[in-house]
């Protein structure tokens, strides 16, 4: 697939703090304003990358591919954004769909690997406390434990406990009832905490 990433490439628009996200969307949708799109991407790239690196990392290629898919999806579907919800909600809905696609694809691909071929982050691999010698290993362990949850649970738990999203926001992003979100979060949190403990995770 053609890639939108290349060394040194950067958005050329400077910060445009005067316009809201919704105004930028309107300019891009109605006037094909490239600078408006550029500014939106500049604003949303940091948070999107945190999400993707957390759920798809540390594979840079997977993160870049997923990020590209999210933005291509945004450009294609921006016409369906009517401003009755915040743009961030619309954006995270797109990000959710693409991210879950990639998580499922990764899960399927990994099913073909043996343990020795995929030593890092292999689901269920026990790592004793003595192995957790630095930040990188601890983060790898957190990622491996998180990746064992259902794809949507990974997404929900990361947004809620990692980024501090509110329940109402998650309801809007997923379109699921709040009770479903709450039960999924509680269950996912319990599972993740239990797996972290089994794998010897201790916060330093």
């Amino acid at each position, binding site marked *: *697939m053609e890639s*939108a990433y290349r060394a040194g490439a950067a958005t050329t628009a400077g910060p445009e703090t005067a316009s809201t996200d919704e105004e930028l969307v309107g300019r891009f949708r109605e006037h094909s304003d490239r600078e408006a799109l550029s500014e939106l991407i500049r604003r949303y790239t940091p948070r999107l990358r945190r999400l993707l*690196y957390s759920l798809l990392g540390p594979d840079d290629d997977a993160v870049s591919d997923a990020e590209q898919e999210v933005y291509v999806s945004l*450009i294609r579907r921006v016409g369906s954004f009517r401003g009755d919800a915040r743009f961030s909600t619309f954006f995270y809905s797109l990000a959710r769909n693409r991210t879950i696609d990639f998580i499922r694809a990764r899960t*399927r691909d990994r099913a073909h690997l043996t343990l020795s071929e995929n030593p890092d982050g292999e689901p269920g691999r026990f790592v004793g406390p003595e192995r957790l010698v630095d930040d990188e290993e601890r983060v790898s362990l957190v990622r491996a434990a998180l990746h064992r949850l259902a794809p949507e649970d990974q997404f929900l738990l990361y947004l809620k406990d990692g980024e501090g999203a509110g329940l109402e926001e998650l309801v809007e992003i997923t379109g699921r009832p709040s009770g479903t979100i709450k039960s999924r979060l509680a269950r996912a949190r319990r*599972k993740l905490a239990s797996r972290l403990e089994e794998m010897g995770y201790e916060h330093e």
Partner: protein
Amino acid sequence: MNTNDRDRNTVARALGELRARAKRASQTTPQPDVDALLAIARAPEAHSDARARASRLQPRLAAAAALAVVAVSALLLVIRPSAPETDPASESIVGLVDSLYDESDYLDGVWTSVLDELESTP
């Protein structure tokens, strides 16, 4: 501190570490090229790899989800009339699906369907 609070603190700290690491990693990646994104977006959608992957996966998910929904619905019909307010039936179903899910991530769709079924059952 009760178990829920302890779990919540552990998970919040762990995800905080993961987020901080993700933030550092993301800062070393080049910014997206807006013109290239616009060009890709104008190309036919059928070339999307992820979409192709998702469409290959869909029939398996749909079949598994349909099977599970039928099974859980039948189970609910049998158990629900005598279930007390605390609803141990739901817990049993959660446990059942948990064990199924551990067998395969493809069952995410099943879990979602079960939760939705439980949510919509009076």
